[in-house]
């Protein structure tokens, strides 16, 4: 099928505004009479709130109000749990404890909000925060996952018997049975530590309550405006139609902006109503490290059973997952880890036990990858270790274990984070891996370049890893498309946009159906007044779910266009063409009508509308996939390590991606570039460092190191395309693909570069310091 617009590198509709300072971000919202909020946050990670005296703060000139949990009275309520455990898995233990608007009895993580000051300016509000006298009785804090699970550990939630937040076991086949038959058992402990999303735009909320029209408008840096609108309406005792949530342009999301009902999200709208004036709160960067969610810490005790040829017989894993002080997001992240531990390999036996643990750290919710990188890290590390022991090449052992193309759809029999059975819908893995090997020059490097460079004393290594990514999960998204009388097309959909180009890629889908120019398709995303059914932008689902809803809706409009045009042009529908904004009779171009004129005819001021029809050229459609489409990719990299500084230079980086039908290759490549850059950060530069008191020691961009243009290499991208059978566009998600395999890739490449030390890297993130330590430890143990 040849496409005219889909699959083309079309420049983005939204760029001119973004490039000239004409795009609205939340902090740009300015309403007359607007007040500014600032929060008093706890320095202690675990403390009892004994007393709080805000009188001095209230007296400061310019301060309009100061609120504590007490002052909220009956309106004080913890946030709603966002994700419950999967209903079809047996014997699940789950204790739901969610974040609170302001601390009432005790502080459970450093940075938790204790009081809020609302003043004429943010400067005055911050001054007033320092006026507040708070008496916190410090308690022992628990930061370490294993310590938190000890019976004598201090408890984050006093009403629970321990710090266990959830427990779930999933099983496929019978690992214990095959264990005895295995030729090789690789048993390791793998430790993964925390990182932040650190979008360039911090969070923010502006709320405006118009008392005369009884209407609340909220601008929020959220990836999920519709659920926020519905939840706020419920919490505030309003009707859903009284609440409008707008997610305008967002400076990056990456996951934490998908977390809902943050304390500030619960408070700011409430304050606007209470005070009768618009209220703005903008997070500053230091706050972002404490008040916005983080991710990733897990400790795995895992074993892989293999035959001596290198075939995986099974995987057995028990792990601890750090949820921080609360667990609003349920089991999403650890279930993703579980689902990806088998990656794209044919594994018949699997046992995975998850224990989710409360600690006195900031809440954990999905960040790009959302638990998948951890699972892939385990699968790839164990295979690398097995390959070494069996004398196999890393590429060979992977090819040996890939699910063959004829085995799709492949059922893994466990439940994934979307509550559906984990089924990999389609794929053809070998060509992707082989293409990556060719693009990186694998054979030539291993056989010629590397030995030559090593002889010169250089520490240069290569890595190649593969991964799957479950994407495009339900429940659904929707879209409404309308042809305007000026010929332009309006599209409204519920998902928000944080830079991934929806305004253009979705327009391409519409253009394809309706024969208009992409720049004539005007999209609104993330405004509940325009469209209020849907969930949000997460889990690499935008193009799959919203894209397909838009496709279906556009198809609906196309049908109406053809029906009406057929009457107007007096020609049968199958002789009509849609091109350049016109409907034409094929071979008789003079017999045509513009879409705009047709739209006007469809909405008559006189005459009668036929019963059973609708006015205008408009259609609304929804799409919900049966289950998520599984994309696949391979990353390969050549890097050099400076043995004195442990600084790394990436010489070559290759990504081969199979995400089904590609809507806009330019946007796709941008997503991969950005994903890899984030993956490089996650693998080698970024780590959130907590001390034993659960104090965050690097809460600034000076000490939390995000890769710059000097650290990120050129990335060569290759494509394969295995269309997904799960949706009409045949597309799979790709938003997180760049990030997922990078830590595993770094581990393999670093071991290879430093082969003389025979390192076995079982942790992530690394850093120059840590690599140095690992080498020192290895040398000492000789």
């Amino acid at each position, binding site marked *: 099928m040849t496409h005219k617009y889909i699959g083309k590198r079309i420049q983005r509709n939204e760029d001119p505004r973004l*490039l*000239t300072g004409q*795009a609205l971000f939340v902090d740009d919202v300015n309403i007359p009479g607007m007040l500014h909020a600032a929060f008093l946050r706890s320095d202690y990670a675990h403390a009892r709130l004994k007393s709080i005296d805000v009188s001095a703060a209230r007296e400061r000139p310019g301060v309009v109000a100061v609120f504590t949990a007490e002052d909220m009275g009956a309106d004080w309520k913890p946030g709603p749990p966002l994700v419950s455990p999967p209903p079809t898995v047996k014997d699940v233990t789950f204790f739901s404890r969610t974040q609170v608007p302001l601390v009432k009895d005790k502080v459970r993580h450093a940075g938790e909000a204790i009081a809020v000051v609302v003043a004429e300016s943010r400067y005055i509000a911050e001054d007033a925060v320092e006026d507040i006298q708070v008496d916190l009785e410090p308690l022992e804090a628990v930061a370490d996952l294993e310590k938190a699970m000890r019976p004598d550990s201090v408890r984050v939630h006093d009403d629970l018997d321990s710090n266990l937040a959830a427990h779930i076991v999933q099983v496929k086949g019978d690992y214990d049975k095959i264990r005895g038959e295995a030729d090789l058992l690789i048993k390791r402990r793998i430790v993964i530590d925390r990182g932040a999303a650190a979008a*360039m735009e911090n969070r923010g909320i502006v709320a405006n309550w118009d008392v005369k029209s009884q209407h609340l408008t909220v601008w929020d840096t959220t990836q999920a405006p519709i659920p926020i609108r519905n939840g706020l309406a419920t919490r505030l005792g309003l009707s859903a139609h009284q609440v409008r949530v707008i997610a305008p342009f967002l400076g990056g999301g990456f996951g934490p902006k998908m977390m809902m009902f943050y304390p500030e999200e619960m408070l700011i709208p409430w304050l606007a109503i209470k005070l009768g004036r618009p209220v703005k709160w903008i997070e500053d960067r230091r706050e972002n490290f404490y008040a916005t969610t983080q991710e990733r810490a897990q400790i795995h005790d895992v074993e892989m059973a293999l035959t001596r040829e290198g075939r995986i017989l099974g995987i057995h894993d028990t792990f601890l997952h750090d949820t921080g002080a609360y667990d609003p997001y349920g089991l999403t992240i650890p279930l993703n880890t579980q689902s990806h531990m088998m990656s794209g390999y044919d594994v018949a036996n699997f046992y995975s036990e998850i224990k989710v643990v409360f600690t006195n750290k900031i809440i954990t919710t999905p960040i790009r990858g959302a638990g998948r990188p951890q699972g892939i890290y385990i699968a790839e590390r164990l295979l690398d270790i097995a390959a070494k022991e069996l004398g196999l090449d890393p590429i060979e052992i992977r090819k040996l274990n890939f699910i063959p193309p004829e085995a799709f759809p492949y059922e893994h029999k466990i439940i994934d984070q979307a509550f559906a059975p984990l089924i990999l819908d389609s794929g053809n893995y070998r060509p992707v891996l082989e293409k990556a090997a060719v693009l990186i020059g694998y054979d030539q490097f291993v056989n010629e370049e590397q030995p030559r460079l090593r002889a010169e004393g250089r520490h240069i290594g290569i890595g190649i890893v593969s991964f799957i990514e479950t994407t495009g999960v339900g429940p659904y998204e929707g879209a409404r498309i309308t042809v305007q009388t000026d010929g332009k097309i309006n599209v409204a959909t519920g998902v928000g946009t944080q830079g991934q180009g929806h305004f253009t890629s979705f327009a391409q889908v519409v253009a394809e159906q309706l024969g208009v120019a992409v720049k004539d398709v005007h999209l609104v995303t993330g405004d509940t007044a325009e469209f209020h059914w849907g969930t949000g932008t997460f889990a690499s689902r935008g193009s799959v779910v919203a894209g397909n809803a838009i496709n279906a809706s556009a198809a609906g409009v196309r049908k109406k266009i053809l029906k009406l045009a057929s009457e107007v042009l007096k020609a049968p529908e199958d002789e009509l063409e849609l091109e350049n904004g016109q409907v034409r009779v094929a071979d008789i171009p003079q017999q045509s009508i513009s879409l705009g004129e047709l739209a006007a005819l469809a909405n008559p001021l006189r005459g009668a509308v036929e019963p059973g029809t609708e006015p205008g050229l408009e259609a609304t459609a929804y799409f919900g996939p049966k289950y998520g489409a599984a994309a696949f990719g391979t990353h390969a990299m050549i890097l050099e390590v400076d043995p004195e500084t442990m600084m790394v230079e990436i010489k070559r980086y290759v990504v081969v991606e199979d995400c089904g039908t590609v809507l806009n290759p330019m946007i796709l490549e*941008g997503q991969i570039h950005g994903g890899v*850059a984030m993956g490089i950060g996650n693998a080698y530069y970024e780590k959130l460092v907590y001390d034993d008191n659960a104090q965050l020691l690097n809460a600034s*961009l*000076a000490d939390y190191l995000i890769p710059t*243009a*000097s650290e990120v290499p050129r990335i060569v991208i290759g494509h394969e395309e295995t269309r997904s059978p799960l949706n009409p566009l045949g597309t799979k998600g790709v938003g997180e693909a760049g990030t997922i395999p990078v830590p595993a890739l770094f581990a393999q490449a670093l071991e290879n570069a430093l082969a003389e030390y025979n390192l076995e890297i079982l942790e992530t993130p690394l850093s120059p310091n840590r690599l140095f330590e690992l080498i020192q430890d290895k040398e000492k143990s000789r």
Partner: protein
Amino acid sequence: MSNTVEVAFTVNNIQYVRNVEPRMLLSDFLRHELGLTGTHVGCEHGVCGACTVLFDGQSVRSCLMFAVQANGHEILTIEGLGTIDNLHPIQQSFIEAHGLQCGFCTPGIILTLVPFLESNPDPSEEEIRHAISGNICRCTGYQNIVEAVKLAAEKMSPNT
């Protein structure tokens, strides 16, 4: 108003006279007093570069300056560089090369590039990466930004 100081300076070729508190940051002044919200604030500690503006032709971090320091000086923000109908070649190049995704860091990067390209009209990739190494982008991985700069250099070269 507690203690305010009168400042007068030019922003995007327009003269402004205002009373400001000495502690007001230049970034806050530009964004909230003058409504020029194209300059974005990413960290307020001088690391991310999103707040970069031109100060007498030099790129500076407006989050590390006070509005009073701008008294008597000339400032250029992204709004002064080009408009939707009249884009600067750098802005046009960013569109063509897909050099932005969320767009939050972009104004700061572009204003870093203006003096850079003036003194380096034909930069190598390494020079470009070094020039923007003080601007953090979380979306693009920098590759297409580098392409955009090369394209801009071509567009701005006197030979074209």
